[in-house]
Structures are given as structure tokens and as C-alpha cells.
């Protein structure tokens, strides 16, 4: 018989745990449930289990099963009932378990969630936040890795947010829940366990002080030679590429869009006008995509500042590949550097 008496580290000597992306989302949900009585969280496995990614962990226990609950396994049902709940005064936050599993709900999104404010001539607001764990890079099997933001961004009446940092995971989810408009909130799966040294109470205080950056892009890294425009799961890749390019003497500016709808043309254009070169980096397949839209807008607005054609590094125009092949599909640092090299640097 062994008696192991491990001493737990004393609370005061413990380093504050780093905040994960998933933890920041969990806190944003918790704080929203505390801040507003009309917030309800529901979806598949979000109750007892706490979500397959644990983003709703503990919410049902803390706030009650009236405020965070599991539904039958039916995405259109989840979305359609969210529309009705919002019409009758609630503020639903629903989870679509995976990107590609949200498609059965698309009719409810496109025909009702996105249009109700317009159909009713502004009389009805539908403050619904739709959380979608999305994108690849996690070795997921088919139907678990789609980058579906383009479908939603193309649908008038929906806001589309894609946080790429732990801080934004918290702040932008709270903004999404407080928004009077429906927001499709994309959570890059591969960033769920990314960490940052952030104090949750500071974040909460920042948000609750009323400071908002809703719908604005940020310059994530300053540079002078070329602008990488990116968002969400591609942000860390773009930043790594910028770091590598700096070693080769190319100064890369990285613009993190944060919000696809509304789109912050001003921040993007200010950067491109400064650097004279633009490269859009996104995981989604490039054809008829958010990346296409960005290229078109940069060309329309910044043509006379451009020293080379606006370029893209995106996923290929293929169904999302099997796990062993995904590294060839996703935008990589090397691919980004190759395209930067090719952007007419000779005089």
C-alpha cells in the first residue's frame, strides 16, 4: 500500500493560468448570461457535456437548464426556434456543432434570420448569435473542416465575425451576443487551445466599460512593404510569414479583419496605400470567396497605389481534403513567402 501525499501548490504561489481561446469564449458566454436575463444558450451537447469543444462547459450547472440546454439533434430546428425565440423577446446563442453540420439550418438562416428585420421594415430585430466551430488544421475527418464563411457573408442581413486572437474571442463574442442584428460567429477550431496572458476580469471590465471595436479591422503587425489581409484561422500563419519575411528583409504589415460583415475597407485601404502591395490569406477555397471580394475591393479602391497585382493565398478549389492531405491545402508560411517573392520587387 502506498500513500502518496502530493502537496497541491498553494493558491497564492500559483501562476495565473493562461487564458485559452475556448476559455475566453466560455467566459464570454457566462458573462453574457449574467449581464442579460434574455440570453439563452442552446444546441447539441451544449448542456451536460459542455459542448464537444467544451466551450459551454459548466454553463448549464451554473445558470440552470432553462438558460443553457441540449436540443434534439436537428440544426434547422435549433435555428428556426432561435428565430421564434428572438421574435418573442429572447436573445438566443445557438451552437452549430461543426461548420458542415450547419447546412441543414441554412434555409432558416438565409430566408428568415437574415431577412426578418428587412421583411418587417425594421419592426423586428433578431438578436441571435450563431456560433460555428469551423475550419481545418486539426486533422478532422470529412464534414468537420469546412470554411463556410463565404455563404453567410454573401447573405445580406447577417453580420459575420471571425476572431483570430484570444482577446477577440472574448470581446467579439460578447459583441455578437449584444448585437441587435443576427451574427454568425466563426470559431477557428485550430485556435481553441491557443493561449494568451490575459486577465479575464480586465477583459470583462474593458468590455463592460463600453469600449467597442465592432466591425473594425486592426493592424496586427506593422510593416512597410506589403500588406497581408487575413482573418481568423489564417492570422497566426500570416504573422509567422511576416516574421520569416522580416528575416529576408521584407517588411510585412498584417491586417486582421476580425469582422467580415461589416467590412472595414478603410483600415485595409490605408495599409495597402501605404505599402503598395496586397496579398489576401484565407483558408477557404478561393473561388467566389471572401478573399475574392477583398481583392476586388482593394483593386477598386487602391488601384493607383498598387505596385503589383493583388494576390491571394487560399485553400484550393476542392472539397476539404482528408486529414493526411490537409497540410497541402491550407495556406502555409512557405506558400505565402513564395507569393510575396513574386510580387514584382524589381525596379
Amino acid at each position, binding site marked *: 500500500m502506498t500513500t502518496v501525499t502530493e502537496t497541491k501548490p498553494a493558491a497564492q504561489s500559483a501562476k495565473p493560468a493562461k487564458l485559452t481561446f475556448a476559455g475566453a469564449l466560455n467566459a464570454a458566454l457566462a458573462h453574457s448570461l449574467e449581464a442579460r436575463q434574455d440570453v*439563452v444558450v442552446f444546441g447539441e451537447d451544449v448542456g451536460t457535456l459542455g459542448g464537444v469543444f467544451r466551450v459551454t462547459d459548466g454553463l448549464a450547472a451554473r445558470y440552470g437548464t*432553462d438558460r443553457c440546454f441540449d*436540443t*434534439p439533434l*436537428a440544426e*434547422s*430546428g435549433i*435555428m*428556426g*426556434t*432561435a*428565430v*421564434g*425565440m*428572438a*421574435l*418573442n*423577446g*429572447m436573445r*438566443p446563442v445557438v451552437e452549430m456543432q461543426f461548420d458542415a453540420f450547419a447546412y*441543414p439550418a441554412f*434555409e*432558416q438562416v438565409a*430566408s*428568415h434570420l437574415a*431577412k*426578418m*428585420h*428587412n*421583411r*418587417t*421594415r*425594421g*419592426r*423586428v*430585430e433578431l438578436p441571435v448569435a450563431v456560433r460555428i466551430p469551423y475550419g481545418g488544421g486539426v486533422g478532422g475527418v470529412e464534414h468537420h473542416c469546412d470554411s463556410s464563411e463565404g455563404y453567410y457573408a454573401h447573405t*445580406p*442581413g447577417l*453580420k459575420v465575425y471571425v476572431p483570430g486572437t484570444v482577446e477577440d474571442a472574448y470581446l467579439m463574442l460578447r459583441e455578437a451576443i449584444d448585437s*441587435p*442584428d443576427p451574427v454568425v460567429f466563426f470559431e477557428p477550431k485550430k485556435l481553441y487551445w491557443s493561449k494568451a496572458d490575459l486577465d479575464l476580469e480586465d477583459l470583462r471590465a474593458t468590455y463592460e466599460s463600453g469600449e467597442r471595436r465592432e*466591425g473594425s479591422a486592426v493592424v496586427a503587425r506593422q510593416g512597410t512593404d506589403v500588406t497581408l489581409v487575413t482573418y481568423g484561422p489564417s492570422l497566426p500563419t500570416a504573422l509567422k510569414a511576416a516574421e520569416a519575411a522580416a528575416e529576408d528583409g521584407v517588411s510585412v504589415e498584417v491586417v486582421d479583419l476580425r469582422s467580415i*460583415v*461589416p*467590412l472595414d*475597407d*478603410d483600415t485595409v485601404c490605408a495599409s495597402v496605400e501605404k505599402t503598395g502591395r496586397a496579398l489576401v490569406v484565407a483558408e477557404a477555397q478561393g473561388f467566389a470567396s471572401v478573399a475574392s471580394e477583398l481583392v476586388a475591393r482593394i483593386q477598386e479602391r487602391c488601384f493607383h497605389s498598387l505596385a503589383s497585382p493583388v494576390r491571394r493565398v487560399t485553400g484550393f478549389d476542392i472539397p476539404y481534403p482528408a486529414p493526411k492531405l490537409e497540410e497541402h491545402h491550407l495556406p502555409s508560411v512557405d506558400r505565402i513567402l513564395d507569393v510575396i517573392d513574386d510580387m514584382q520587387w524589381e525596379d
Partner: protein
Amino acid sequence: MSESIDTPVGPPIPPARQELTLVERVSSQMGISPEDYMLPAEREIRMLSPEGTLLPAEQQGTGPGHEYPIPSDEVLLEAYERLMVGRRVNDQNTALVRQGRLAVYPSSHGQEACQVAAAMCLEDNDWLFPTYRDTVAVISKGVDPLDVMVSFRGDWHCGYDPKEHKTAAQATPLTTQLLHAVGAAHAAVLRGEDTVVLAMCGDGATSEGDFHEALNFAAVFRLPVVFFVQNNGYAISVPLARQSAAPTLAHKAVGYGMAGERVDGNDLVALMAALRRAVDLARTERIPLLVEAHTYRMQAHTNADDDTRYREREEVKEWAAKDPVLRMETYLRDKGVLDEAAAARVSEHCETVAASLRDAMNADVNPDPLEMFDHVFSEPTQQLREQRDWLAEELAAEAAEGRADQAAKEGAR
């Protein structure tokens, strides 16, 4: 040892407490089996013969667990007035389509008894979720007919405030509104309100996936929703046989653990009785129910449809003989509830509504094109403001050009 013999005999030890299912509890209260509770009565509920005479109780289709008290004369007279207004609205709007004043009007001619009963069974705070063919129900719920017609005139997609009237915007995509109804009921339950929600759909809509999801959600979450299916025999051209092989649409309820009932959809008395009981049960027991009304769409799907391609004139004629209006009128007149004075008053009311519809729909209304950008979001985005400005410039240029042309014409004269 004979300990057990010495022990005084007490009351039997109750079995471990078992939770009754909701269906078991409701059916036991009614003194019937859960199956009898969930399955529709053997025959559809009908109070009036097609000729308008009250059927003997044993022929009404009612029975234990399927009891439907007939509403008071006062309620039925009110229902009759709304029925007449509904018929007048349908026919006035059909005429306005022919005159080119309306973009479209899916008429519920022949189904007005269902329309009126759907609205009249609800209290003021109850919600109604209608489809594009349920204009008369929306009006009967209290929305101004002129506001309802805004969408059919082509000014905007919905002309009334759904929250003010507890009446959702008329849904065109099939069956999606049933889920909205379930969500609205869920919201009310979470707030502890005793609101009932009535959701309308047609026979074709029961084939949609949202029909299944809505009934299932309502049953699982135990929500006070009455699903009211107007089975009018056709989904545009496709007959019921191609939608469902179920014994009746009301039988679908049992699969969700809810009660289903079928009613003669051209018998306003039976509809009022059945829907009022369904709403009462939904409210008091907090349960969903399904009511199927068997009726007929007397006219084509819309003015763009040609129903001679898919149904026999003989069939339409048969249904004309079962028309809900004459049937109700005969019953109320024979009963002495509807006298000449009341009939004259109803008729005058109908003509007033029709006249105001004609006046309003014949007036030229030009919606402001710039408003198109105002309600996409609560605040227009930068991009929408830019597009709005672009259109505003185009409109200003067109207006200036029009003025210049006019001036040139006048100069030439």
C-alpha cells in the same frame, strides 16, 4: 419464525415513485388510454351537415377524450361575421388582382372557416404564425386589412408589426414558420407566461423536414403550440396522396407523443369547438396538439396557376356544395341567432371593408427606393451607405433629366 404474521398488516407499500409520462398523465385525467388520447377519433369531428343542420351527438365523431362542447351562440355569430368578412376580402382581392392592382393574392376562398377559427380561438396575448394563404386569419386576428395587403400590393414584404399584433409575418417558404412558432412558445414558457401559439400550415407542408423538427421540438420541450394543418387537398397541383401515406395527417401526432384530431374544415362550428379545446388544453396542460382540418381550395393556387390541368371540375363542384358560408348561415338562421337585422349589419360591414380595400389598393403608392438600404441591419454599414448614395445620385439625375425634358417640351410649345 412467524414474524410476518405477528406484524400488523398496514397499507401496501407504494411502489417506487414512477414519473408518468406527460401523455399518460393527460390521458389518465381524461379516463382514456394514452393511445386513445393521442390518436384521432374514429371519424372527423363534424357538428353541422353540409346542409347546415346540427348533427345528432352520436354523429359528431366525438367520444371519451374527444369531447367538444359547442361554443355559445354569441361566439358563433361573431365567427359568422368574420367568416363573411373573410369571404368578401378574398373575393375583393381576387378582383383586384384581375384589375392589375395587386401583384398576387393566394386566396383562401373555401377555407375561410379554418381562417376565422384559427384566429378566434386565441386570446389577445396568444401568437399566430400564418402562411401566405392565411391573410383572412391575420385580419381576423386584428391586423388592419390595408396593412396586410402592403405585401400583395408589392410595396414591401410585410406591412404590419408582428410584435404589436402577436402575428408573425406571413411565411412563404413552406413550414419554416412552425419552428418560429415553437421558439416563440419556448420563450413564453421560459418567462413563465401562459401564452399559446397557433401555427398554420397546409397538407403539402407536412412533407417538409421542418414539420417534423417543429413537432418534435414542441413535444420534447413540452410547449403550448397548436399545429393547425389546413388539408385542402393540393400543394399547387400535387394531391395529398403524393404527400403522405399516413391514414390521416392527424395520425402523425402520435409519433411525437402528442394528440392529433381531424375536423371538418368547412364546418365553422366544429372548427371553433375543436380549436378552442386544443388551445385550452395547450394552455392548461402546457402541451402541443395537432389539428387537421379537411377543406378545399376552391380556386387555383394563385392567379398564375391553372387548376384545370390537375383537377376535375366535378370535384370542385362537389366541394362547392360543402361551402362553409352557406352552411353556417343556414344553421344560424334556423336557430334564430341570425335575423334580418344582424344579416344586414354583417353585410354592411363586409362592404365597408371591401370599399376601403378598393380605395387603398387603387391609390398609387410609390415606396421610397432609398428605404431599401435602411432595414438590412439596425444601422446601415459603410458599404450600404455608399450604395444608398449611389442610388440617390441616380434618382436625382433622373429627376433633373425629367424636369429638363419637361421644360424642353414646354419651350417647344
